[in-house]
Each structure stands twice: as C-alpha cells, then as structure tokens.
C-alpha cells in the first residue's frame, strides 16, 4: 500500500517518481528487481517495463537510477520538489 502523505502533503500531489527514457532502456529489469516499493511493473509488448505505481516511490530517493547501467532513469529536481511541498503545506495551513 502506498504512503498516503509525505511531510503532511498528500503523496499523489508530489510529482516525485522516475521517468524511463525508452531510447536508453535495455529492459534488463534491474530497477524493478531493486525497488522494494513496486514502483515499476513488467508488462507484455514492445515496452515491457512501466512506471505503474508512482505514488509508491519514496520522495527524494533516487537509488533505482544508480542501479541503471544505461542511465535511463531520471527524476525531477529536488529544489523544485521541495518548493512544491512547501507551497502545498503553506496553502493547507492558510485555509
């Protein structure tokens, strides 16, 4: 089950999860094997790997990208993500 909040912010409002560069990905599945949070999913077809559960991704963790030999995984910038979290928290506290 996904975490429902992070720093008091609904997790699904924080855009932190990996993006797969399908031009680089070799579908070796190391990231899926590595990630204990089931962010990735193996599928049938031409693109046998997908981000199935983005809200399961641990905010600020980029460990899967470090297992990726072809460097096919990328994440948003941390400063922008922190700014977004602060913005939502401030919006919530001013209500």
């Amino acid at each position, binding site marked *: 089950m996904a975490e429902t909040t992070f720093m008091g912010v609904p997790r699904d409002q924080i855009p932190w999860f990996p993006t797969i560069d399908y031009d680089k990905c070799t579908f070796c599945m190391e990231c899926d094997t590595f990630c204990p949070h089931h962010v990735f999913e193996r599928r049938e077809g031409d693109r046998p790997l997908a981000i199935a559960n983005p809200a399961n991704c641990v905010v600020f963790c980029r*460990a899967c990208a470090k*297992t990726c*030999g072809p460097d096919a995984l990328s994440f948003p910038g941390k400063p922008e993500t922190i700014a977004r979290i602060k913005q939502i928290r401030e919006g919530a506290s001013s209500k």
Partner: protein
Amino acid sequence: MKRAILSCNGLDKPEGSVAREVAIRGAEATGAEIICPVLLNRAPARYRKALADSAVTVVDGCSTRCATRLASQLKANVERKVLVSDAVKGSGQALESTLALGPNGVALARRIVEELVRNLSAPAVAGEPAAEFETPVEYLAVTHDKFEFRIPVVDYLFNENDVWVRASDGVARVGISDYMQQKLTDVSYFDPPKVDSGVEQFGELGSLESAKAVFEIISPVGGNVTAVNRAAIDNPALVNEDPYGAGWLVEVKLTHWPEDQELLVDAAAYAGIVQRKAAEE
C-alpha cells in the same frame, strides 16, 4: 593487511573494458591480488582465503554494479570503490564507443589508478568531529510483530526518509534511524560524502549498502560537511549496533537550521511514521 581487487570484467560495455584495465593496472601498482568474478562464480573456494584476509577494492564498470553485488554477497571487507561510469562523467571526456580500449579509455584508467593509489596511501580526510554529542538515554519504542524500533525522545529530529539529526552550537550530527538500520539488515559499506562539500536539505550525504539494499542518506539539513565518521567507514556494523550514537555518519555545519526544522519531525511524530511504514511492509 593484504589487498585484493574485485572488478567488473567488462565484456559488454566500454566502461567495463576500462574497469578491467583499472584492475590490471591497480594490481600492478598496489600489489593487490585480482579476483576474477567469472572464476569466483565457478569456483568460489579459489578465492576464499583472499576474501577472508584482504581489504578489497571493488571496481564497477556501470551502475549495474555487478562487482559490488558480488562483494556484498560474499561479505567482503570493502576498502575502496570505483565506479567507472561516474569517472567518465567527471572527466568530461567521452569514452570511445568500441569495446577495445582506445586512448581515452587508457588515459582514464591510468588516472583512476593514480587516484586509487593516492587514496590507499592517504585515506580521505574524515574531519574533526564535534565532541559534545552524548548517547541518548531515553527512547520511545515502536513495536510491530516481533520487531521493536527505538526512537530517542529528546534532542533528535527526523526527516521522513528515516534520517535523524541532532544539532548543537551550529553543528549537526546525522545518522539513520533504528527502523532503517533494521530494514537494511547488516550494513556492509558506508560511502561518505566529501568533507568540506556543501549539501542542501534533502540532498545526498553519501550512501549505505547492505546485501539487501542501497540506501541514499537524504540530508535532513543544509550546510557544509565538516566530518564523517571514520569508525563507521572502517566498521559499518556500528550503524546497526548503535545507530543513534557510535554509528553516526556525518557532521554538517548548519547554514539554514531554522528553516530546515520546518520540514523535520520530532520523536512522537516520527514514531507515527515508523508505525505506518512498518504496517505497510
């Protein structure tokens, strides 16, 4: 202590060819024994003694880190690590695209070995830790099934990435929580940040590795790294044995402490987070 090099054999990527070259040149320069991963896989007894007696330098070609995984599985005493793909990025010069080494690959291998030899003869600066941090005395306990996770009641704040911070006189000591050390199981390697480097809140302060996982240490504070725990580098088991005391990881001179605290939680709130995380596993 004897030395050994466990390296990627590099038959499918140019970075692997560089890793292999680093192993050969590094063994010549340091007198280390090379551990061939293929033979290790076929006949592990061949290297049992070398692994038991040696400080091991692990050389990975790419981020798949096959050599690192082998070292973890074998509980090798890892002294140094090299990741060629990172060295390529840091060098600003692309490798030749061929598997056979070109001039750029040879030059990079030579530079990596020179740095390795320098580091082995003069360990990285650990900095001077602040002396005034004492081991906590009172803990909250979160229990889940047969597990108990301890959380110090006072002085410690946490981020939701399971990293604690304890601040005093503008300096903060950072480590991982009891919950996270239990989740990682036996920590086998602490890759520390560089002393004197800057870090933003939620930036990376190195990493920990166990046979089970690689854990990025997400900094709870912003500032400058003033010290790393040499004892935890030499004996990563300290992180498991005493995560809030002797197993601390990094000290940071604080630059934005008042703002940083807005995004941290106290022991009671962190206990709730641990309870939830443990229940979701």
